[in-house]
């Protein structure tokens, strides 16, 4: 089953492909995830795989690494058909992947997470020393210096991502597949990953890189394959495709993020935050958001942006400081109370916190409005459904309102998460990575909705985003955070991507003065 063939490889064009996908199809009930997909990957090549959400990219990864079985078609490694039983077998054959969602063991140490399932042993026992040493050196290779004995539960998302990457590169690799590896990383961390990938490439490893970030793909890729609706659209050298061409291939039309200049003046201050501090997390943060304004919050991952939003929303215990909503000081005690005062929050982790995936779209949308939808302790199902239908139309959600949210695509789930809050007619929207992992088409739609909410309906919007082009295109003003401090408040005319990155990183090197 497994191939053992080894041939000398060199970067660039090679007559015999390292990996060949041959007419692979995969179907989930009615949904065709992949249909007759064929393309090849040369040794030592960085092959970008792009496509809208649901195009079938992750499904392809699952099939190549043995997590799922194709309905038909074949995968060839170095010319031989392979069908791995599980990812472990794939790794033994030199095919490893970093999957889209983190898959780690929170109670176990970093070192054990890297070696779980394949512990180094000595005389049948786990060799803990060797494990620790190897883990440390692997992480060092990634330019990461964390204590490998600490539990993964305490890590940040980015750190966890690096643990996964360390795990993937812990074996000799022919092919490394990275499924949206930078979506949780800061630009600086991403650059480190680019270096690692470059090094692996130089060693002859082929890389499959899946990403929604265009600039990244342009920067890295040798070859690009575009999938659309489960079908192979085109494989071409990176030089032959510009951004516009890629986007057209992905969505069948061209989408560009362009700022839309505001026509209306700003309203009064709706949300005012004064001297907000939470010990060890963020310190002395003050800002205002006006009616009709979209304020972007940029900064490195881990700089405390999400924590501030959660503190304002009452999701996490607030520290000291003052929050004023529409002129009234409030204490952020719980999401429920803040929602009642018109402050709502769209969480970062949509599936774990944003929606309740097993209940229907209608009930999800109505959930925060439940109290308003009942009289004398009894619900009004008809009103419930009416609200759901209204929101479905307003946000053009593509789903039946009786279907469970779990059957929706990512973008539509995000719209449902937003719809629930819009149904409560909020005053202040806190959006945390609202377009994370959403394809370009839907992204633009979400941006339009945000502008409409702010400019037409007078909401105050605070948008946390790691996607700088988005921040620049959508915001009226940009706040920059670095390690818990608000380090810059840039008007949109000054807020270029370069200026934001400069603010976020400059202050990171000055931390000694503050701490």
């Amino acid at each position, binding site marked *: 089953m497994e191939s053992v063939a080894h041939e000398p490889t060199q970067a660039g064009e090679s007559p015999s492909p390292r990996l060949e996908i041959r*007419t692979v*199809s995969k*179907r989930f009930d009615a949904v*065709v995830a992949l*249909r*007759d997909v064929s393309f090849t990957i040369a040794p030592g090549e960085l092959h970008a795989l792009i496509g809208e959400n649901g195009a079938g990219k992750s499904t392809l990864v699952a099939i190549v690494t043995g997590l799922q*079985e194709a*309905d*038909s*078609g*074949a995968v060839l490694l170095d010319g031989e058909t392979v069908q791995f039983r599980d990812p472990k077998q794939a790794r033994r054959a030199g095919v490893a992947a970093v999957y889209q969602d983190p898959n780690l063991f929170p109670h176990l140490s970093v070192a054990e997470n890297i070696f779980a399932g394949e512990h180094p042993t000595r005389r049948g026992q786990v060799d803990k020393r060797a494990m620790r040493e190897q883990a440390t050196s692997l992480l060092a290779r990634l330019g990461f210096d964390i204590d490998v004995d600490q539990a993964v539960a305490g890590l940040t998302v980015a750190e966890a991502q690096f643990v996964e990457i360390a795990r993937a590169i812990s074996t000799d690799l022919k092919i490394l597949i990275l499924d949206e590896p930078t979506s949780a990383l800061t630009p600086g961390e991403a650059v480190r990953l680019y270096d690692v990938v470059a090094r692996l490439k130089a060693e002859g490893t082929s890389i499959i890189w899946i990403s929604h970030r265009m600039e990244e793909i342009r920067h890295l890729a040798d070859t690009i394959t575009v999938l659309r609706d489960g079908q192979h659209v085109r494989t071409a050298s990176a030089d032959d495709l510009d951004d516009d061409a890629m986007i057209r291939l992905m969505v069948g039309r061209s989408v560009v993020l362009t700022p839309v200049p505001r026509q209306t003046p700003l309203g009064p201050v709706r949300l005012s935050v004064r001297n907000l501090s939470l010990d060890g997390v963020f310190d002395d943060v003050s800002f205002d958001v006006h009616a009709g304004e979209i304020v972007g919050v940029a900064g490195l991952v881990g700089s405390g942006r999400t924590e501030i939003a959660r503190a304002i929303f009452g*999701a996490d215990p607030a520290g000291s400081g003052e929050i004023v909503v529409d002129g009234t000081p409030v204490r952020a005690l*719980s*999401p*429920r109370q803040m*929602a*009642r005062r018109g402050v709502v*929050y769209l*969480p970062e982790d949509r599936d*774990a*916190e*944003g*929606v*309740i*995936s*097993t*209940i229907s779209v209608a*009930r999800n949308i*109505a*959930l*925060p409005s*439940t*109290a308003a939808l*009942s009289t004398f*302790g*009894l*619900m009004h*199902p008809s009103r419930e459904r009416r609200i759901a239908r209204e929101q479905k139309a307003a946000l053009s959600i593509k789903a039946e309102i009786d279907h469970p949210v779990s059957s929706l695509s990512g973008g539509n789930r995000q719209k449902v998460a937003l719809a*629930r809050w819009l149904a*409560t007619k909020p005053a202040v929207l806190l959006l945390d990575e609202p377009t994370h992992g959403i394809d370009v088409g839907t992204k633009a739609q979400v941006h339009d909705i945000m502008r409409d909410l702010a400019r037409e309906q007078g909401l105050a919007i605070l948008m946390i985003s790691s996607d700088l082009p988005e921040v620049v295109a959508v915001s009226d003003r940009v706040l920059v955070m670095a390690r818990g401090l608000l380090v810059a408040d840039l008007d949109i005319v000054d807020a270029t991507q370069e200026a934001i990155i400069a603010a976020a990183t400059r202050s990171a090197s000055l931390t000694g003065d503050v701490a």
Partner: protein
Amino acid sequence: MSLVRLARQYSWELLLVVLILAAGAWATTLSPFYLEAAQILGSAQYFAIFGILAFGLMTVVIQGEIDISLASTLAVGSVTFAQLATNGFPVVVATVIVLALCATLGAINGVLVAYANLPSLAVTLGTLGAYRGLAYIIGGEAGFTGLPESYTYLGSHLLGIVPASLLVFLLLAAATAVLMAATPFGRYSYAIGNSSPASAMAGVPVKRVRVGAYVVAALTAGIGSLLWIGQYFSARADNADGSILFILTAVVLGGVSIKGGKGTVVGVLLAVLLLGVLSNGMGLANFPGSSQTLILGALLIVSIGLPNGVVRLRSSLSRRQRAATAARLVTDDDARARSPG
């Protein structure tokens, strides 16, 4: 089309109905005494108490938690009620006191689970013992017999051939059904059971609703204790000891997911009926107790496991088949995938 969807949505309930009919038929062949209205109703009343507790436990389990202390709460209720009766309290006052006391015990469970964030199995494992101890302290060692008639009315009265306790059971079934299907509490419960962090982020008062479920459950135990006194004309601190296993069986058999988020009152009602019919039939046929235990245990395993087993078997068979013919059928498969359908 919608009928098919309805059938699929309520497939578990349908299965239970079929099982009940089958069990009834079996019971009829087992014993000539089975098929008689008075007999069936009479025996059903002995499942009323546990059925009522099953509705209470259900509200907790739908939220993804568990309460194994309910039987102990019932004992606290019954000895308190009897103690009050012995001391000459009017029945109405005593009823209020008992329900309030039980609600308090439930609230303690709820607060420990919801506010102190402790795992519910561990908490109620603790209160399972603690409340039993409390029952002994309130009720003394010997317990009570010979209670005044006014106190035993609810559990012993017959309306024609229909025992009053059975009516209470059905009434509470209806009340719980409304609670779970048509009130904010119900909406919140299912949401919490599916994901409590996500519910909290949606402004659901998770902690209060959690405590609410434990209070509802404890109230069913309180009502159960009132019925108990009527049915058994006595109260002792060891009342209902160990019955939580039966109650949990009814809840699970009723299609309530032990992981939360799923389950209906109708399902639990049907499960109680099924268990009642089976043990009534086997009892009338004088099956040895141990065989009955064995059969009910096997029923639980088979009914929950069989559907999964069939799915597993089917998928593994089809996989094997596919693997065997994979190479040859690649092109055929493609053709099928392409064909409209």
